[in-house]
């Protein structure tokens, strides 16, 4: 899917975000750089506090400022730097060329407005539709996200919808203006597992129909495997590894990625699959006082002395598929094979 020759849709360069607190600045995002091409699906994985959500919210001016603050970088979307845009200009991008789906569909829809009113809003703002045309389009959108009996449900309120249906409504809002990029921020986290699968399936279908690029932010590697072309692993506001989805799963090069993969329950095998679930020792670092080197080094059994003093650059992993980048001073496959030999 990745076509390195074409101009990227989104080009994030060295983005850094901090939040001022009484205890000092929290460095939530620390120099994140990546590109996303048209039609590409990028899965961003990481635990809470890894900066995965904050960095997308920050690039569209959706973090509260103050206390939030963008401390550096550029975010080129279709060649324009979003961070340099005035609020008024940025508003035209939000909900227009870039659609959002948020985590909790219970709280992300306005309880006091009908579903129609909430879908119609971006249509009127970005597409300039009149009330009648917007309503027709709103019904089409509910049909698109497979909500049965859409016409009758337009005038209902969010509390009259089930959790999965509400997330469908959120997706309808996110896709309402035919965005080039849909950002789904933990879009399935708050849902039951069966509903999660439905929503993921729906997004995949819609992507085939509409062809937009997707950034899918989650802490669930299972969801990422099903939906992404590219996976990006974040930790402490940095990208530790990034590459084609199959390559990341079969040939992880960063110890943190390995830890995440090992913590997935393996339901495929019989007896062999029944192993104790792996757990990454320790806790994420204090984001106010980040360690000087690789932020994962204190929790990493494979860390070298250099890891503790110097942040490794994100670079092509030797011997891996092209585009598989890793930030590590150690050679994980070599260490693993040595471990297996013992």
């Amino acid at each position, binding site marked *: 899917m990745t076509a390195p020759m074409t101009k990227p849709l989104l080009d994030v360069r060295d983005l850094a975000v901090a939040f001022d607190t009484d205890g000092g600045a929290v460095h939530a995002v620390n120099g994140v750089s990546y590109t996303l091409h048209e039609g590409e699906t990028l899965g961003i994985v990481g635990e809470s506090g890894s900066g995965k959500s904050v960095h997308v919210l920050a690039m569209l001016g*959706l973090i*509260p400022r103050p206390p939030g603050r963008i401390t550096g970088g550029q975010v080129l979307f279709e060649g324009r730097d979003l961070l340099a845009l005035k609020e008024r200009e940025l508003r035209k991008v939000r*909900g227009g060329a870039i659609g959002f789906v*948020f985590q909790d569909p219970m*709280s*992300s829809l*306005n309880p*006091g407005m009908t579903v129609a009113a909430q879908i119609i809003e971006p249509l009127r703002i970005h597409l300039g539709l009149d009330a009648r045309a917007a309503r027709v389009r709103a019904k089409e959108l509910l049909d698109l996200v497979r909500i049965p009996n859409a016409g009758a449900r337009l005038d209902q309120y969010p509390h009259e919808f089930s959790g999965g249906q509400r997330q469908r409504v*959120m997706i309808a*809002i996110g896709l309402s203006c035919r965005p080039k990029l849909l950002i789904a921020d933990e879009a399935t986290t708050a849902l039951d597992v069966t509903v999660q699968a439905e929503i993921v399936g729906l997004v995949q279908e819609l992507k085939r129909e509409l062809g937009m690029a997707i950034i899918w932010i989650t802490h669930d590697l299972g969801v990422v495997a099903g939906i992404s072309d590219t996976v990006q692993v974040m930790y402490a506001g940095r990208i530790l590894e990034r590459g084609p989805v199959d390559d990341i799963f079969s040939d992880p090069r960063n110890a943190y990625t390995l830890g995440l993969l090992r913590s997935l329950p393996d339901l495929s095998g019989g007896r062999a699959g029944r192993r104790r679930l792996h757990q990454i020792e320790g806790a994420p670092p204090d984001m106010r006082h980040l360690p000087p080197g690789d932020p994962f080094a204190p929790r990493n059994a494979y860390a070298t002395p250099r890891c503790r003093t110097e942040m490794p650059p994100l670079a092509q992993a030797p011997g891996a598929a092209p585009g598989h980048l890793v930030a590590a001073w150690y050679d994980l496959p070599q260490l693993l094979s040595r471990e297996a030999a013992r």
Partner: protein
Amino acid sequence: MLRFLARRLALAIPTLILASMIIFALQQLLPGDVATALTGEERDPQVIAFIREKYHLDEPLPVRYAYWAGGVLRGDLGESIRLQKPVSELIVEKLPVTLELACLAMLVALAIGVPMGVLSAVKRGQAADTIANGIALWGLSVPNFWLGILLILLFSVELGWLPASGYVSPFESMSDNLAAMVMPAFVLGNAIAAVMMRHTRAAMLGVLGSDYVRTARAKGVSPLRVTLRHALPNAAIPIITLGALEFGQLLSGAVLTEQVFSVPGFGKLMVDAVFNRDFATVQGVVICTAATYIALNLAADLLSAAVNPKLRRA
């Protein structure tokens, strides 16, 4: 919706009965005797006996309550001993005055309190927030009667723009009526505006941090529309509830303010009645106030349901 209304109205009846019993009982704790208070200096035992007989003062408390309650059920609130007039007539006479004052005061409170609360929530931590909070603190801490006196000094004595006191019926002259009402309404509204501002601010801060406000912003909705269309209606419920309570308070009579501006409303009627052991009047006013309170709370609930569709099912 109709069932909701019916249930609320049914609940109002025991509330009213309880309120009337409490006020009836509490009044017996007041020292002094009506009969002796009425007869004045030369106490003719025959007259006292006559008065006691007429107002059933010798009967036990429950029997007297039954007499009174029976009257209320027939629409008879009794007679003011002091003014020799039916209490209902007194209430009908004073209620419009108090009602007008209360409405104007609420108008002032809403017009100042809500926009200021919204502004200070939106501009949290900035200069506007600090200024609004300062004004609210001032409004809360300035005593009504003192502010009233200062306003009279400035606008009536110094500038001569407004009458210092009194009341003119709006049917006589609308402009004179408003001129007499504007200062007491401002004094009363000012104090409520401060409370209103604080509550609006708190409610707005909660709502502005909510996920659906972020959704609205992510849709590209303008900040003004986010504030007024997405946030304010969801912050309105505590404001409506508070408004109804404050309005009820105003209707029961603003004793001090009415005194300062000599407004002939409920507050003045009540104070005079209490001082003269005019029990029937006190009871009548209290029952009337309690009923208004209940009606206002009901109105607030209905209004909240209109704002929040979720409540409509209740």
